[in-house]
């Protein structure tokens, strides 16, 4: 039986997180959620080391969140992105933001993100995940 696509979703906005989770679940993906970057990194490490067969296929990270020190940081998602890619440099990632900010988008791509997605159009997110994973 083919393995389900497993997605790590990290966003500190509860309703946004839950809404995206529901959208992705409805699209047939397995979704693990974390409410901040520390929890997200911990979850990723745990799965990566303890469930090698069930590793995440893709990570969807909010950009503006509290950083590892708990301080609100407009680039916290990029810090988490770097940590995840240090562990698994082939991990496809999508960075989410509410801003139309080309500079940050291109910075995310230069750090290894596969895409930068402006929140609010969740149907587009499913299409993007499918594109990146070649589904």
């Amino acid at each position: 039986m083919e393995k389900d696509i497993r997605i790590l979703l990290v966003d500190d906005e509860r309703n946004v997180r839950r809404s995206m989770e529901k959208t992705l679940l409805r699209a047939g993906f397995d979704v693990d959620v974390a409410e901040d970057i520390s929890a997200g990194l911990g979850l990723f490490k745990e799965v990566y080391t303890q469930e090698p067969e069930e590793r995440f296929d893709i990570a969807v990270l909010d950009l503006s969140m509290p950083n590892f020190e708990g301080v609100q940081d407009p680039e916290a998602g990029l810090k988490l992105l770097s940590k995840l890619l240090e562990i698994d440099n082939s991990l496809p990632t999508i960075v989410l933001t509410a801003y139309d900010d080309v500079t940050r988008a291109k910075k995310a791509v230069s750090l290894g993100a596969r895409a930068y997605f402006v929140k609010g159009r969740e149907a587009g997110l499913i299409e993007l995940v499918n594109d990146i994973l070649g589904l």
Partner: protein
Amino acid sequence: MEKTSLAERRAALLQAGAQVSRNVISILDPDELLQKTVDIICEEFGFYYAGVFLLDEEKEWAVLQSGRGDAGAAMVAEGHKLHVGGLSMIGAATGRNQALIALDVGDEPVHFKNPHLPLTRSEMALPLSVGSEVIGALTVQSIEEAAFSDDDITALQAMADQLAIAINNARLYSMNRILLSQTTRRARLLEASTQVAKGITSILDLDELLHETVDVICEAYGFYYAGVFLLDETNEWAVLRAGYGEAGSHMVELGHQLRIGGLSMIGTAIAERHARIALDVGDEPVHFKNPHLPLTRSEMALPLVVGNKVIGAVTVQSVEESAFSDEDISSLQAMADQLAIALDNARLLRELEAAHSELVRTKTFEALATSTIEAIHWIGNKALPMTASVDRLCSDLEDLQGVDEEIKASMREDLAMVRDNAQLIVAVQEHLIGPARDNKPLPAMIDDVVKDLLVKMEIPSDIITYEPEASLPLAVADTTQLSRSLGYILQNALDATEGQKDRQIKVVVEPRESKGLLYVAINITNNGPSIPESELDKIWAAFYTTKGAKHAGLGLSATLQIMKQLDGQVAVKNLSDGGVEFEVLVPVIDSKYVEATLPVGQSVLLIDDDDSWSRFVSATLIEAGNKVDCSLDTKNYAKYDWVFVDDALESGDTMKVLSALSKAQVSDKVYVCASNMRVERVMDLMHYGIKDVLLKPYTVEALAKIFSD
């Protein structure tokens, strides 16, 4: 005549002389003194006539100043005068400084036969001398022949000497009074000038300063009227800002103004930067006959000059002809000079206050903007999941079984309303946050930026007319932000003309000079309905809209904010023949050419329309020694080292071009160049695996940087 009677007569004469002296010595008014003298001589001595002559300034004529009785008065009125040294008794006495007696005037050769004094038979002329200086002469006449003796001369000469001293004293007294009056006036003017100087250095309120000045000028100098004119913004008119009394207040209320260089004294004084004085306004050709000031007979117009600049003029008017002395003119001009400095100080203070207010406003605005952006961001983020939730609910609703169709329809309607409002909140978030993002102003070809925008907005060609001038200077702008603001204006034009049969939107781009600065002007006109004049200012306010609840009313507010950040301008006006025109001014770049190193020997494909940007890139690279093909339908992509694609193709589809490039497996050397960078667009473009999406280079330096990076 007997000795006793002679002695008595001499004593009587001496007594009368003493009496005259006593009476006249204390009289300080010259006219009264002389009249009193002739009256006393005739009354005390019993003579027929007495008169006093004084020499004129040139000492050429002895002029009758006072004469006894009607005859004397008539001669004074006629200006009776006798030549000094002439044939008359008075002429001879003054010419020689010697008393003369004519005992029978009929026999006396020097006697002038005077028709006013037909009865005279004896005459005595006594010189009036102070020291060796003759100041006049006294004539005493009798109806008796041989009425005077040498003793009489002695006695009367003593009296004449006293009289001369008294006249001299009266003259000195009169002169002193004039000097005292002048000194007092000078002191008063000095005090007034000091008062104005003190006042104007301490008064910083312009209106108070001007009114205080006109009041002081009129009250201290005793002039009929004073007014202060200041130049208007056009420098074509001098506008009355303060005037003395009711006439002044009335003229200020009426907006009294005079043209610079016109026929008025004020207009001429300002134009020529010189004081003008009309001592009898009836004779002064440049005087403006003012019905509010009918009594003016003299007028002075003093320019208010600060450095090389004339800022206005002061008018001072008098009811007297020739009213202004040299001292008045110099002290009033000094006062005008101080007033000009004070006015300039008041202007500087106003500018300082305005700058301070602007700073406070800016800081307040910044604080408000920061908190507003935080709030809007927060609200927007809360609204983000709502549309997805609604979509899910809509989907679920359609799957629900056994629900009344009417209830379903109502739920669909409610969900649609929630979706609309959620989308509006997200749109508001972008409208408010977008303009507040960092600006990165760079040199830009405005005609290309506008062309790209028109292509992206896909405005039908039968609606839009685009007329860029062929040779435009480079402007400086964040082209993404500029595109955003122009997009709002164009959308406004589309909305305004929606439903019209003959919709027309015209965009003209041309150089423009405004207040000494160079701009590239973008004029966007539409033939939609005019904006009510009362609404013209309101359209720039946030959340102001006439288009209904689905519009946030933030587009033009954002446009204004963006143009301020770009140091540009935006304005709107109704056109006289209908329609509306928006004008956007973008500042022209003010920097020197920067040397840049371009590649050599490279093969470059430029996929673009034939426009100003593609011509610039081609010409620059070819001149540097590269091969450039500019085409939309090239197939053999592999031969090129670099491929540049314009993000806004009028004659093609960028996505199809990128797809073809991707199929040809040359995406890794493809750069998409855009004047308007939106993240979603960039991500869409990046899907094709291209090298990068870049802001369009509009200078050689920016173009070279792409190759060096």
